[in-house]
């Protein structure tokens, strides 16, 4: 099939960007979306033109590197998948596809479709961990975790940190990302000793970065490639409320 691509091109963080139109011809429905871009790029290189820069790595939906707005939707129109998992059979011959980087003030463009998501690492450094040094762990089966809780913790822990939630949210809120980590630890006994400190600290880091608040649009849940549930945000709010009331800070 043949497609028209309208791709955001931007030389670097400080330059202006614009949409540029390309044709993608002879696209196979079995191609992944990124393979379709690869083919377009190979053509551009041979013409001596700068290929379209985009982030990618594992190409199987787990590393969280790819970050495309496709037809105005973070990771494209299909539910529960990252840009790299999207295949061309989701589109029709003659379609026009707009491809942009994840849009959020806190994800500045590095080049074309590549953005800087280092704010997420800074939030993680503010408390997204259990403080245990290597060597000091207790025997693993002394910590019993009810299966249901462990499954819920795993549902939350599946977050790949791609930032689609921020890109989709009208408030550029990072609540779904933060709540996934808070939930994972709040549901597990290992997270308990630092429970209050963690939620206060990560929440503060998120606000200081400038991410917006949640106003229940649920766009984040709709685009999340790992289908992280909105209920995690409820748990984050509950944890935050509880910690705030009980905090001595």
């Amino acid at each position, binding site marked *: 099939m043949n497609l028209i691509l309208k791709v955001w091109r931007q*030389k*670097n963080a400080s330059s202006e960007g614009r949409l540029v139109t390309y044709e993608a011809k002879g696209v*196979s429905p*079995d*191609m*992944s979306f*990124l*393979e*379709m871009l*690869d083919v377009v790029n*190979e053509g*551009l*290189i041979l013409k*001596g033109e*700068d290929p379209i*820069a985009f*982030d*990618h*790595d*594992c*190409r*199987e939906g*787990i*590393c*969280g*590197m790819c970050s495309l707005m496709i037809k105005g939707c973070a990771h494209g129109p*299909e539910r529960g998948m990252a840009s790299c*998992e*999207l*295949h061309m059979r989701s589109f029709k011959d003659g379609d026009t596809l707009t491809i942009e980087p994840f849009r959020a003030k806190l994800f500045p463009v*590095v080049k074309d479709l*590549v953005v800087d*998501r*280092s704010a997420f*690492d800074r939030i*993680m*450094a503010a408390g*997204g*961990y*259990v403080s*245990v*040094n*290597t*060597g*000091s*762990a*207790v025997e*693993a*089966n002394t910590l*019993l*975790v009810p*299966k249901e809780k*462990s499954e819920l913790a*795993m549902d939350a*822990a599946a977050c*790949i*940190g791609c930032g689609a939630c921020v890109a989709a949210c009208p408030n550029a809120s990072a609540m779904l990302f933060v709540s996934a980590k808070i939930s*994972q*630890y709040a549901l597990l006994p*290992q997270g308990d000793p630092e429970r209050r400190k963690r939620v206060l600290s990560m929440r503060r880091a998120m606000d200081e970065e400038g991410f917006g608040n949640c106003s229940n649009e649920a766009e984040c849940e709709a685009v999340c490639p790992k289908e992280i549930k909105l209920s995690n945000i409820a748990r984050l709010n509950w944890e935050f409320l509880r910690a705030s009331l009980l905090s001595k800070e």
Partner: protein
Amino acid sequence: MILNSKVPEGLLEKKWDNHRFNLKLVNPANKRKFEILVVGTGLAGSSAAASLAELGYSVKVFCLQDSPRRAHSIAAQGGINAAKNYPNDGDSIYRLFYDTIKGGDFRAREANVYRLAQVSNAIIDHCVALGVPFAREYGGTLANRSFGGAQVSRTFYARGQTGQQLLLGAYSALMRQVASGRAQVFPRREMLDVVVVDGVARGITVRNLVTGALESHVGHAVLLCTGGYGNVFYLSTNAANSNVTATWRAHKRGAFFANPCFTQIHPTCIPMSGDYQSKLTLMSESLRNDGRVWVPKKKGDLRPPNQIPGEERDYYLERKYPSFGNLVPRDVASRAAKQMIDEGLGVGPTGLAVYLDFADAVKRLGVDVIREKYANLFDMYYHITGEDPYKVPMRIYPAVHYTMGGLWVDYNLMTTIPGLFCLGEANFSDHGANRLGASALMQGLADGYFIVPYTLGDYLAGSNWGKVEVAHPAFKESEKAVSEQTKKILSIRGKRTPTDFHKQLGLLLWNQCGMSRSEKGLKEVLTKIPQIREEFWKNVTITGEEGEFNQVLEKAGRVADYLEFAELLVRDALHRKESCGGHFREEYQTPDNEAKRDDANFCYVAAWEFKGLGKEPLLHKEPLQFESVHLTQRNYQ
């Protein structure tokens, strides 16, 4: 140079304990004065960086991706082995050790493998403490499953995302150290050279992938945790950016490369669909616990799989290996699939696939149980192929997945360049000629959490160097060499893209140096690689500039290294005149087509020394001595 493995004296069971006692310690107050450079943030790199920073060292961490959390360990699906023996089914440290060394076809270092089994339990304890949500039983205890090549259930898992959860655990520990100020992360950096001063590794040259600028970093030790070289084959299950550059460039600076021909072809991957294919996706080996592998008995049987009755199917693994059945080790399963396909029994549109069928398991256990165990894998398969594996058998085909070879390291994980350590898949040490399922995660974390924190201290405590700064001529020389290569590549402006050369090289290797290798084929490849390399340096085309974000330039640098490294891989495969593990030489097989080892002549590690491009590398042999196990022919029948 005589290779000294530094394996400690004493009984196998006591070696690591004795060694730890004999290792020198660094005064706690002095640790912060030592700068440690860690390259790569997969399981080995993140766990090492976190653990070393916890001890008080000043750690700098470098990764290609925009965040350390994205390293390719994240994609490991199935699980991590440990000798906990929770299921009470006969496991022990010795059995895990024995299975691992036997699985590696007796081409790994006995003392290293034993140590790996010894620390395996502490890894599980630590990962649980970090909050890794492993699968649980209803009573709240940890769940286990069996995995390819083992007859006990010793694999711990977090659905089909075990690598992700373990990596995020190590990443969280690292971010805690970033917050403490003891660790500093440098994302979007690619290591392009190791800087050696007076024979000792003292730093690295990296390219800032955003600005294109070269940066020098000085350290007291350098840890390469940069993963395997599977992408030399172009198509593999590795991430697109995984590459050989860091280890290859260290090799060119004096680190020996060991057993590069030991590459693992994983039996259960999603088959290729067209020539645009950029990577292959693994379907976890755990699927073989419940899936049955088969092909039609009749050649050219084009009926849909569900219309082929049971008696017209050949469940060839169950037929050939009745005691292990579908759970034979990876090398055995891959070769068996190749045999079926070579006989014309392959299925699907390309004929390059076999079926992995869950119909019986769904009938026996119900669809909900199957969904709970494998939902994410089944979803992934559906996304890629458009077919529903709950209803139609999966089509699978072997693909390059893991590389057992890597930089030669001694028992302390130090390469032949003093001060340069190598951890995880990037080194060669623990898997011999074939890696068993769920052992890679174990090894990466063993190296990072529980081995290098001890052995690095011994190196630092015993060394006494002068002060080195980035103004040192060795750093300037390194930067100049890297920059000259970049300028040279950019100046060619030829007619073929880096990817085009990469594909050509990969296909050549896959056909002649993949699942099955012969002297004739290998010799042919050995003459072709230099020709491709020569053309690359005359006819490659790169767009853009050096001083900017330039993915084509990044790719070209990696392909240039593959074109050098591939020659060593093939040379190693040619010299090893035996079949063992993932290295199958057609000339050396048993009457029933199994690998035929030659212990009299090849029971050694082949460690290659770089002697200049286009020159023959020098082979050093580290004889493998087995004090505890008896070498046997592997038999999974």
